[in-house]
Structure formats: C-alpha cells, structure tokens
C-alpha cells in the first residue's frame, strides 16, 4: 500500500509540474510490474480523481496541468490498451455522444479536453468543433443516436446561444430524450447560467465529465 501511495504522489507531482514524460514513465514501470488493470485501478484512476478534486476545490490548477493529465490518460490508453481504432484512439464502449462549441464560440481548449477525458473513459465522441449551430447539434445527435450533447462556451455572450439548442430540442419533441451537458469558463463563474441556457448538467472541470455524461445518458428516456 505504501508503494501505491508513493507512486500516486509521484504521479500527482509529475502532473502538477506538467511533466508528461515522467508521468508516462511512472505508469509504464507500474504496468511492467503489476499489469495494466492494476495500474488503472490503483494508480491512474485514483490520481486523476485527486487531481480533479484539486481542480474542483481551488483555482490553483492550471490548464497546462489539466491538459497534461488528459494527455497522460490518452497516452496510457494508446500504449497499453490494444483496442485502438483507425483514429489511433481506444475503441469506444459507450455512446456515441456529440460535443462542440456553441455558435459564435471559438475557444476550443476546454472542448478538446472534454473530448480527451471522454475518449479516455471509453466514449465514442463526435466532435463538431467550433461555432456549431443548434440545428447541427441536433441533426448530428439524431443521425448518430447520441443521447447526450456536450456544449462548450467561454463567455456569457456566446453561452446564451445554447438556449437555441434547448429550443430546437423542444421544437422536435426530444425533451428528456437528448440531454444537454454545458460547460466552460463562464459556467464556473456563473453557475445559475446552466439553468438559464437550458442545460441538464455541468461539471466544473473536464476530469469529472465521465460521471456527468453517464448520468445524463442514463437519464435519457431513449431505450
């Protein structure tokens, strides 16, 4: 147990230093000794959970550190899970889900991090990119069978465009079938905005996106 705790501490330290190389090396060594499954359960997942808590509870975690966490997860999946698809990412077990930045929003970093953590958690992610219209989100969700749409916006002026997605859902009688996850810097500053724009849920950071999407997926009335 002591060794596990020590390794987790070293991994947290490497992530906080945004040191991808050292983090990957630590994980590789653990895999060599104890195997992939134990590494995920004993080291990687608990460490990411700890980092997520730091991110949730303070403003001390930078995007660089969070981004490195995501990259480490992605590196691990690519290297140690021999289930890669054509895109070089792990084969999806869950989903599909659709993500994108809302109409007029071009701040893609948060969305990309959400994509990384979702894929690392086994979701089939359809990323529509920046400046996505409400109709495009819904069309793609229907076409792909996605029950959850994740929408990112950085500023208030663009976040209000998410209301159009909610309206489109209502217009097509898809309420409770397609669930809306919303996120981005402005939602951390103004949590009341989630309800204002018609969101079904949010998370303060990309690391907690998996449980949010699982909940929304399960809340969907589509069988």
């Amino acid at each position, binding site marked *: 147990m002591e060794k596990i705790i020590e390794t987790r501490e070293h991994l947290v330290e490497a992530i*906080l*230093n*945004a040191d*991808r190389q050292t983090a990957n090396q630590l994980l590789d060594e653990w895999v060599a000794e104890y195997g992939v499954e134990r590494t995920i359960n004993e080291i990687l997942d608990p460490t990411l959970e700890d980092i997520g808590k730091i991110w949730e509870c303070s*403003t*001390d975690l*930078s*995007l*660089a*550190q969070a*981004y*490195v966490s995501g*990259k480490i997860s992605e590196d691990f999946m690519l290297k140690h899970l021999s289930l890669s698809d054509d895109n070089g990412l792990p084969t999806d077990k869950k989903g599909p889900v659709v993500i994108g930045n809302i109409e*007029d929003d*071009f*701040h*893609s*970093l948060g969305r*990309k991090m959400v994509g990384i953590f979702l894929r690392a958690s086994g979701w089939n992610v359809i990323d529509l990119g*920046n*400046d996505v219209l409400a109709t495009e989100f819904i069309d793609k969700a229907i076409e792909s069978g996605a029950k959850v749409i994740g929408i990112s916006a950085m500023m208030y*002026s663009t976040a209000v465009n998410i209301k159009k997605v909610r309206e489109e859902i209502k217009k097509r009688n898809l309420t409770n079938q397609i669930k809306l996850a919303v996120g981005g810097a402005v939602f951390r500053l103004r949590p009341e905005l989630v309800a204002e724009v018609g969101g079904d849920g949010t998370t303060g950071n990309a690391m907690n996106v998996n449980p949010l999407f699982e909940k929304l997926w399960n809340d969907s009335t589509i069988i």
Partner: protein
Amino acid sequence: MNGIERIMATLNGQEKDQTAVILTLSLYGAGLIKAPLFEYYNRPELYAEGQAAVRETFHPDLILTPFFIPGEGEAFGSVVKYFNSDAPNIRKPATESAEALLKLPVPDINDSTRLQYFIKATELVAKQCSQDTLIGSVMVSPIDLPAVIMGIDGWLETILFKTDIARAFCEKTTEYFVKRANAFLAAGANLIVLPVCFCNPEIITPFILNNIAIPIYREAFKQVKGPIVLHHTGSPMNAFNGFLKDLPNVIGFCVDPKDNLDVARENIGEHKLLLGNIDGPTLNKYSAENISRRCKRILTNRVNDNHFILASSAADIPLNTPPENIHAILQSVSDFKKENE
C-alpha cells in the same frame, strides 16, 4: 490636474487632486459614435473618432488605442469574426501545427494593413488627446502572441511538448514585438499595455513562467523604449505578479477583480503602479449606485496607496453599459476625495 499630471503624480507617489482613473473604453467608443464594429476595427479614423467621443463624454485620464487582441493574430493570417455588439474574436487560427508555425512569415509593420491600422489609430488618437491625456497602446507579448496565431490549445501543446519549436518561434516574435512596441511609442503612445492572455496562472504553471516565459519577456522588454503595464486579461494574476515585478520597463500591473488588492500590492512592491479592479465586462449588469459603492470599497482599501489607479479590469466595458454607470466610477473618485479631505 489633467490626466497626464494625475498619472505621472501617481507614478511618482506624489499628491494629486484625486485618484487617477483608467477605463477600458476601446469598444465603447464605437457605441458613442454608432459605428459598425467591422468599420470601427478597420478604419483608424473611425476608431479615433470613437475615442474622441470617449474623451469628450468621460474625460478619462488615459485613452487606449485599439484593444483588439484578435487583430494581432489576423496580422499573421488568423481569421477574425466580427460581431454586432461585442469585440471581434478569432474564428480560425492561422495554423494549428507547431511545425507550420515556424514557417509562417512574420508580417512587416510597414506593409501589413492590419498593423498599419493599429499604428495609424495610435497616431490619430495621440494627435487629438495627447495634450492632456496619456495614450496606452495595447498589444501582446512575444510569448502570448502565438496563442492568437495558433489558438490557446495549439500553443499550450507546443509549449508543453515541443518546447524547442516554441522557443524558436518566440525568437521571431521577440524581434517583431520590439519593432511594434517602439513603433507605437514613435506614433505617440506613452506606454504599452500588455494583456497577459496566455502566460497567466489559469493556463500555465510557475515552472513554465519562470523557465520559458520570463527569459523571453526580459529579452523583449529591455529593448522597448518606453514603460510597460501588464494587464491580467481575464485571469487572477496574484500568483504570478511577484515573478514579473522586476522585468525591465514594467511600471505597473492591472489586476483581476478576484485579486486581493493588499496581496497584489505586497507582490509587486510598494512603488509599482497598481491598477484595478472593478470588473469592466459586468458594468452593464449593475446600477450606478451599486457601482459607486463598489468603487468606494476599492478606494477605501487603497486610501493610503499613493501608487494606485482605479481601473476597470478584464475585457472591454460592454456597449450596452448605461453611460451613468461609467460616470458613477468617475464621480466616486471625486466624491471619495471630498469625503476624505
């Protein structure tokens, strides 16, 4: 006292008639003259007209030349999107690949239409305001600039994982930055305002700041022939400002509304200018009375701080902010002075 005298007195820690005020009214000028925003950010004479209206309406102590960070990226090939009531934003970065970044041509400040817009706007604003108002030219630093050329995510990935390319590109942007900053000063700017849009605690780590950013800042800033004010952009900066306080030519720091002003002062030392920290982008959401109360709280906090300037923090004050809300900030300064005489 006029704006120049008030800010210079603040810089020198001397007595003044009232606290100096700096407001981010770059965008707001367009509203005052009812200019379409595409025109405003492309025709320097229209920008100058907007700032003349700002000066006439509010008499601020400093006028800003275009606060238009996406325009910096546009000069390198990024595509800008214009809005009807908000400042423009980057629609598509010039490149998303670190390798392609190094091949991007650096724009010539004498040839680039976008860069000439910035310089011409500075000349015109200086011509009409510089007798009694300081002129601050806004631009981004050599290491913040790539974030508007390749997006924050692309630049973050380059800094983190392709550091050699990042450093090599910053050598090019340093030379470019120095030329531009000195061109602004030659065009009539009195100081350079640098929004730290990438190298802030929300994006990078102290390790990146100290080992990559600060050496680049130092090399660039020492070649600038005028003073520099570092602006927090949209992130609390208290965690980093202590590392930045001794950079060459840096005379002041504009901090975030969330930054504690006592901590900010402690971090930057007692003689640097401290600017802040009423939140500019939300001034349209409060009453004038509420804004007055918030200003009074800030002024009370800084009552013994001879190097403090009351300033709007973060991005531009929105176009739909009632003028009385902006007047409330200015009025609060003179009221506070009278109350404390």
